[in-house]
């Protein structure tokens, strides 16, 4: 399984990332997820902090686990850090497989585990005040679903 994991300030190119997963021609199905900063009232900036080295290590563990659960040919995870604006893209998870159901399942699994396990923290700036985004328990529930499957 081809794996690409990047934590970066820069935006990413969806066309290039999907092409990268399909150049070998093995996979007919690519499921992708992109997370975006919502445009919400007075939200001006979303700043992403992370734990360098652990981030990559943890995402690598999550991707490996997905690779044991589903027949995948490639996985790409790109997570941005630093200062983002409403409308900006935050994260890309793209999964290639010969089977579209496997691609969808693995992509959602990876997102659920990124949300609950990868060491990133979001801080919002609104009208001059800043506050840390609270973890959502619905994300824990989403990740726990996979334990019984």
């Amino acid at each position: 399984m081809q794996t690409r994991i990047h934590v970066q300030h820069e935006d990413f190119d969806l066309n290039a990332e999907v092409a990268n997963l399909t150049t070998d021609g093995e996979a007919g199905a690519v499921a992708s997820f992109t997370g975006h900063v919502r445009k919400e009232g007075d939200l001006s900036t979303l700043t992403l902090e992370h734990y360098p080295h652990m981030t990559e290590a943890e995402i690598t563990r999550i991707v490996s686990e997905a690779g044991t659960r589903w027949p995948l040919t490639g996985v790409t995870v790109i997570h941005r850090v630093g200062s983002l604006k409403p409308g900006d893209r935050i994260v890309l998870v793209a999964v290639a497989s010969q089977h579209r159901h496997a691609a969808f399942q693995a992509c959602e699994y990876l997102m659920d585990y990124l949300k609950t396990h990868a060491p990133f923290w979001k801080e919002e700036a609104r009208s001059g005040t800043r506050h840390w985004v609270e973890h959502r328990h619905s994300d824990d529930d989403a990740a726990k679903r996979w334990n019984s499957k």
Partner: protein
Amino acid sequence: MILLYFAWVRQKIGKSEESLTPPVTDVASLIAHLKSLGPNYAEAFADLNRIRVAINQRHAGLDAPVGPDDEVAFFPPVTGG
């Protein structure tokens, strides 16, 4: 022991990293030790339900053992993705 702090834990403590050699053998006693170092630490660790721990870059529990060569990180529940 290398200690790392992230997000509001870092802000409350007032630093992102420090090196200490406290006389502790698990995470819970490490936290108790840190809380004794000053009100900034006490405030950061006031509610342990809101604290997560990683040892050598892997998630760990409050009962996990720690030693002098470990990298121990404290942070809030994650909010990436």
